[in-house]
């Protein structure tokens, strides 16, 4: 049905109405455009023999049908809304749970991340990788276009032990791993207290004879007597990588082997420190 086809017909109908067409005919022609009532209209037009009775019965049923339809539509609408709302409610609960799970996961990961970022843990990780702090540095001065200083590679394995304890972080997998590693390492230290005491004394004696002349860093070669004791060096375990620590724990051989390169690095400072630690265990 196109609008253009409708208009002339509607206009004709109205025109006929004005020249006293019977009301029913006018009604019929007016109804023609609306599709649903076409059959009704034609039926009424066809049954012109007893039209009022048929029409009355039909129009008596119509409000009832409309009411029933309306009630049903309303019920269906309410049902639909209800389903929607409770569905939304369940979905909300589900999403909340999902949100919580994700938040918890993110929290656990943040905890791990921040554990790794704690300076003492960074230092520990660096030590495990065999990194040492720099002892001298150069300077590139951009303003003066100058390079100054005479940086030297730092001697291996100094500052082996990190004294700031690792944070206790329950619920962080990273912290749990680090704690078990620390336990392993501690267990790898020598158990004998008297042995540790001997070395401590030797280290102290060596230190008294040394003049550092204001230098803040121990001069390695002067510290050699401290570590030249025949007993296994306890510094071997903490200075090594975790694998080394295991080896030292497994047998004293590994520790003795490390005795060679160690004096260059250990120094009385760290020897004292670590023996103190060993004695404390």
């Amino acid at each position, binding site marked *: 049905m196109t609008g253009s086809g409708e208009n002339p017909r509607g206009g004709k109908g109205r025109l006929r109405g004005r020249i006293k067409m019977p009301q029913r005919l006018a009604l019929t022609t007016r109804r023609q455009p609306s599709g649903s009532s076409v059959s009704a209209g034609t039926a009424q037009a066809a049954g012109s023999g007893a039209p009022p009775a048929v029409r009355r019965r039909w129009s008596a049923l119509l409000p009832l049908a409309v009411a029933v339809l309306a009630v049903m539509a309303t019920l269906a609408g309410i049902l639909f809304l209800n389903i929607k*709302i409770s569905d939304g409610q369940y979905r909300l609960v589900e999403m909340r749970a999902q949100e919580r799970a994700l938040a918890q996961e993110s929290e656990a990961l943040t*905890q791990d991340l921040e554990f790794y970022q704690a*300076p003492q843990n960074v230092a520990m990780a660096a030590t495990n990788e065999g990194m040492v702090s720099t002892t001298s540095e150069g300077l590139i001065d951009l303003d003066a276009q100058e390079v100054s200083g005479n940086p030297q590679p730092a001697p291996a394995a100094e500052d082996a032990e990190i*004294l700031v304890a690792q944070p206790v972080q*329950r619920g962080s997998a990273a912290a749990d791993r680090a704690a078990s590693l620390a336990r392993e390492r501690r267990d790898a230290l020598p158990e004998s207290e008297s042995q540790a005491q001997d070395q401590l004394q030797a280290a102290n004696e060596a230190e008294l004879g040394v003049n550092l002349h204001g230098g803040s860093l121990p001069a390695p070669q002067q510290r050699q007597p401290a570590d030249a004791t025949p007993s296994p060096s306890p510094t071997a375990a903490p200075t090594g990588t975790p694998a080394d620590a295991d080896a030292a724990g497994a047998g004293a051989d590994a520790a003795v082997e490390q005795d060679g390169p160690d004096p260059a690095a250990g120094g009385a400072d760290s020897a004292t420190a670590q023996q103190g630690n060993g004695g404390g265990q």
Partner: protein
Amino acid sequence: MSSSSEHPDATDDPQLGMQRPASRREFIGLAIGLFALVLLALRLVWVQGFDLSGRAASAENARLRQERLPALRGEIVDRTGAVMARSIQRYDIAVDQTLVQDIIMRNPDGTTRTVSVLETIQNLADILHISDDDVRDALDGDANFQYLFRSATPEQWNAVRELQLGYVTAEPVSQRSYPNGQLGGSVVGFMGGDGDALAGIELSQNDVLSGEDGSRTFEISADGVRIPVAPQDEVSAVDGGSVQLTIDRDVQYYAQEAVAARVKELDAEWGTAVVLRVSDGQVLALADSTMVDPNEPGRTENEGDYSPRAVAAAVEPGSTEKTLTASAAIEEGKAEPLSEVPVPAELTIDGQTFTDSFNHGAEDRTFAGIVADSMNTGTVEVGSRLSPEQRHTWLKNFGIGDLTGIEIPGETMGLLADWTAWDTRQQYTVLFGQGLSQSPLRTATIYQTVANDGVLVEPRVVLSTTDATGNTTQAPTPEPRRVISSETAAQVLEIMETVVTVGGAPDAAVEGYRVGGKSGTAEAPGDQGGYDGYTTSFVGMAPMEDPQYVVAVTLQRPKGDVRTIGASGVFSRIMGDVLKHYGVSPSTTEPVALDKFFGKDADRNDENRD
């Protein structure tokens, strides 16, 4: 449509008209019906409107649930934004002991399995990492509510939930997590088990951090699902703000590691290091050899670990106080760095005899030479040119005996008796830092004053606070206060540098930088009165051409010979790390080394010069 709906009305009219002549019987029936309706309506009003038996209210109460919406506690971050304290989600797991019984678990395939209580106990113990006995004790009894485990991680609670135990419930709680643990632990502070702030910034900034709890009221249906259309009230929580500290986590680490190493080496009781920024008194580090791990404060062995010792411990400062004496004497015009002071082998004044830590004959010293080699005799000689009242006034000027006002609870103001109460000896010993006590932080502020052109800025550890909506408020900065003139400060700085270049503390030198400072060794008062052991310290600043940082190191009761237990090496290590960390350019100017001698001893001036 409208026309068709009019017709039925028209046709119904006659029918209605036919019903109107109602019989008497029908009328009575109708009246009874109406009466019943009225009764029902009255009853309805009675029940719903007046609700005398409270049924509607109790029904509503049964549906109503009120929930506390806990405010999230704010974070504490360091000056770089690294998190020092944050809140994380944990669960307090509780049991209803009256319901403990064997559990019938339904498998997905429809079969069932009975899990005995014993098995459940073992499962719970495994998940929660506690002993079977603890679990059994928590389950055994007839209480409706008993905590089984507090602060369980979400993982643990999920695992417990999978056991499908009807009698186990969990309440989500917020717990504090301190990612850096011991590092700066007592500065950050910690919380008690019931969520009360107990120490440090957590306590002092509790108002900013805690926020305000909200609440939510809603109705639930019988099956526990929220009724979506029912009215609900919600007052949202206002989350706590975050606090940014002036502490730099990395500097804190350098300081803490260095001081811990030295304390271990000397088997000292404790050690502490303060790093201050000269220009504004901001505290970059408050490091103790051991600090509490706020994650588990209960593990701490030493009570002193609970608050930063630099703030809470009062110690006799010893010779580091000579800097204050020198500042006062120079400011009052009683001396200059190169004033000539003949120093006897031992000095007797008012019947009190003073000696030095090293043996010497009568020497012709400059004032700089006296301070450089930390001579008590010469210091008393020069200091006694000030009246006792002046000495007291100058100590007060530098804030001795007063709080710095740093935002950390438990600060000590030390002990400074009024000068009228000083005994004959004390009036002289205060000149070299004995007979009075102060916090290491207070000692550091003396050097901050000298380094800052004579202007004291009280130290602060809170940089700013940020509320939940993101508005940042800078913490109020204390009013800078001029204590000594700029000229005096410059002269004292030269003396400080002489201490390191040709004086008694060559260990304090930092390669590449001009450094100044002063060492101190004081006898530490023992618990049973008298003195017992030493307190050694070194406080200094760098770079001397424009001092930017002050580092103060204090060691309590180090063991060993008094000449080998100093703190200057630790100072050097920390100061070196600080200067490099902040990218301070190495000094290009020549270091100052004032003459220490005059007259007959003048030829000894080149002794320690390279």
